[in-house]
């Protein structure tokens, strides 16, 4: 559990993911985005061998490809006309722009898969509970409640089937009636059980003090400082570049790109460094294990 990226302070990992998403949404350059995507897929592989990603990927690809296809169909800006489709000009610029948007979207989506595995609800809460005390507790209880209600619903459905109550068969009217009946049981039952939960909360002194304290199980270590420093430096270089107009491919009105020059390489390498940080940490970890 506590290895690699997971050993970092929630703030550090949160900063990385937010930074990555912002960068891939602003640096709309296919080279940057392809690099970012490859690295993020690599990170997913480091975390769980890509198991989670694999289950989401078909859907993500579908979304991405749709965008890549839709853009040239609706946007006809650009000089380079490739061919006519149903009397509409398809321009090279629009195709490239569509692909760039696809890459940007994929970067964000794929990074979400990794984000969800690294930033558990506990870590998220830890980051934000200081600011929103009561809400933090509420969110936590709700998080527990969702699987609970789901499980209760399943149990009720199995049992009620024996009494002919089944919202999946029969005419619509009956289905609706049955669904309401099952919901009604879930609610009554959950309310009843919630009374016991509230007893247990009171028994442990809930509500005596206005302000609750909180248990921090995450420490900000030296490693976090180093990583955060690196992320801030490389991140700001990239952002500076993007303000200066580097790192964004000029597509409209006319596609022109003649490779990276001078400063552009600096910006590109900063981007690589930023995105690579967690993989470097994971890599450092596995090096330790090998030697």
């Amino acid at each position: 559990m506590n290895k690699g990226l997971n050993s970092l302070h929630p703030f550090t990992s949160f900063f990385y993911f937010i930074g990555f998403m912002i960068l891939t949404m602003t640096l709309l350059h296919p080279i940057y985005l392809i690099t970012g995507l490859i690295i993020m897929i690599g990170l997913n592989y480091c975390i769980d061998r890509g198991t989670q990603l694999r289950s989401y990927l078909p859907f993500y690809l579908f979304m991405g490809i749709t965008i890549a296809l839709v853009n040239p169909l609706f946007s006809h800006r650009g000089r380079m006309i490739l061919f006519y489709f149903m009397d509409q000009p398809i321009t090279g610029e629009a195709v490239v722009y569509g692909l760039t948007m696809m890459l940007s979207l994929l970067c964000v989506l794929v990074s979400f898969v990794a984000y969800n595995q690294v930033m558990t609800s506990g870590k998220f809460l830890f980051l934000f509970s200081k600011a929103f005390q009561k809400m933090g507790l509420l969110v936590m209880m709700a998080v527990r409640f969702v699987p609970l209600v789901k499980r209760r619903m399943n149990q009720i459905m199995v049992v009620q089937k024996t009494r002919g109550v089944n919202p999946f068969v029969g005419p619509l009217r009956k289905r609706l009636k049955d669904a309401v009946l099952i919901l009604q049981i879930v609610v009554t039952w959950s309310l009843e059980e919630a009374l016991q939960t509230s007893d247990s909360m009171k028994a442990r002194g809930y509500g005596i003090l206005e302000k609750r304290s909180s248990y921090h199980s995450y420490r900000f270590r030296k490693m976090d400082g180093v990583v955060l420093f690196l992320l801030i430096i490389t991140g700001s270089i990239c952002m500076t570049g993007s303000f200066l107009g580097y790192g964004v491919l000029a597509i409209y009105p006319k596609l022109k790109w003649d490779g990276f020059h001078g400063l552009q390489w600096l910006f590109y390498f900063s981007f690589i460094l930023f995105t690579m940080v967690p993989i470097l940490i994971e890599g450092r970890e596995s090096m330790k294990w090998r030697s």
Partner: protein
Amino acid sequence: MAILEMKDVSFSYPDKTLALQHISIQIEPGECTVIGGASGSGKSTLLRMLKREVQPVGLVTGEILYDGIPLQHQDLSRMAQEVAMIFQDPENQIVMDEVWQELAFGLENLGYSSAVIRKRVAEIVSFFGLEELLHRKTYELSGGQKQMVNLAAVLLMQPKVLLLDEPTSQLDPIAAREFLQMVKRLNEELGMTVILVEHRLEDVFALGDRVILMDSGCIHYEGTVQQAIDQVWRAQDCLFLPYLPTISQLYLTVQKGSGMIPTSVKEGRQWLQREILDCFSKPQGLKESSTSSQEEAITTLLQLKNIDFRYQRDGKPILTSLNLSLYENDFFVVVGGNGAGKTTMLQVAAGLLKPLSGMVKLQDKKLAKIPPKERYQIIGYLAQNPKLYFVHDTVAAELQHVIQNHGLDISKYELDELISRLGIHHLLEKHPYDCSGGEQQKIALAGVLLGKPKILLIDEPTKGLDPISKKEFAEILNGLRQNGVSILMVTHDIEFAASYATRCAMLFNGEIISEDKPGPFFKGNFFYTTVLNRIFREHLPSAITYEEVLAQWHVPTS
């Protein structure tokens, strides 16, 4: 000085029902007190009176003192910490999503600094050996683990008194014993004062320094374990006789007179060694109860053939090539630990879950081919939690709902007959949720029986029932069997299985491991057997129940 004291306390609920009548008790520091009694005897109310935050609403007279000062004058924060309470249901006490959050919850409420919380969590986690669970989701834990987490969560507050309200009633026997061992450790190693309310007294007698037995809001017996057992026996008090450990009852039947009354397996065996070993010298009781060679022809009613089941495609297999037959007029009990797949097996047998492979046959037809409505009428399924059935505000409406929904043809006479047979007449106008666990079970059973099933599948019906309700329930089942209903039941309750089953089987790791009549079935087991069998194993290997031991044992029963 007593740490907790009740002085002539009476309590009545807002609807004027008297729950406690003139109770006076003193609890000394470091003492372990066990309070027993049927459900509704007021024992839980008594316990709740001692914890101010969860005191029921109603009229209280008399005085309750903690450390010499009345409860209502005590500091709230101090009381929350020093008097801790664990409730019956392991699941409902949990508030948070992950175990470490749950542990920290109480201390966070009281505003402790993170350094203190961290230290205490570290300490308690290693005391309990919860390291593995610390970052798990609370809902993934088993019932026993949940209850351990609950215990750890209150112990973080470093309480002086631990109040336990039937903490093991929802656990399987192994988890229950583990929990009680931990309570014992806390009592012995940390000198914690423990007050334990239970109706499964067999296991807790060994724990308590003092026993209080209650009925209808009054204390009937009070004293050391030995005294209490002796008093109940002498009075031959039917209210409490079923609570005594079977070995104690046997001892008192056989050996009139004084001496240490055995309450556990160890003490029982010592008693045998000491006193009456010679009675067994003539091995005449050991006729192996003559395996009455293949009685009348057996008709198979329900058959499970090579059943495989799992919940998800890549999930872990729950049932693996499981074979099981239920005969006509059978009372077939399947025992097995937690997570062995008992509930799943029953639901497959009822046609509620579709097996991955294999077949369920009802007489000669495939179960899946029978239309659901007819299927669920022939096979009645009683789930573990009766609350899952209730839809209406009164029990009467509940039963009417079943009749209507199934379009059943039931005469008023038949309905009345069923209601009186189950003894739920007085409940008809009550809300099902207001009834006790045993009563709810009977109401749910009534609903199932309305369809006049030929087969009854019952999931763990004795969980949380007191011994008297358990006996009543067993009698109802026996009555049904005489009327031609075959019963398949899964349970943890070995004593129940031994006393009432006609056949027993063990489910382990998704398959039926062994299957036999109760006698031979339990005889060979080392752990999965009755307390009496564990005591008399060497001398009367085929005796499983109290009656059998008495019948086979040729001692001069004075």
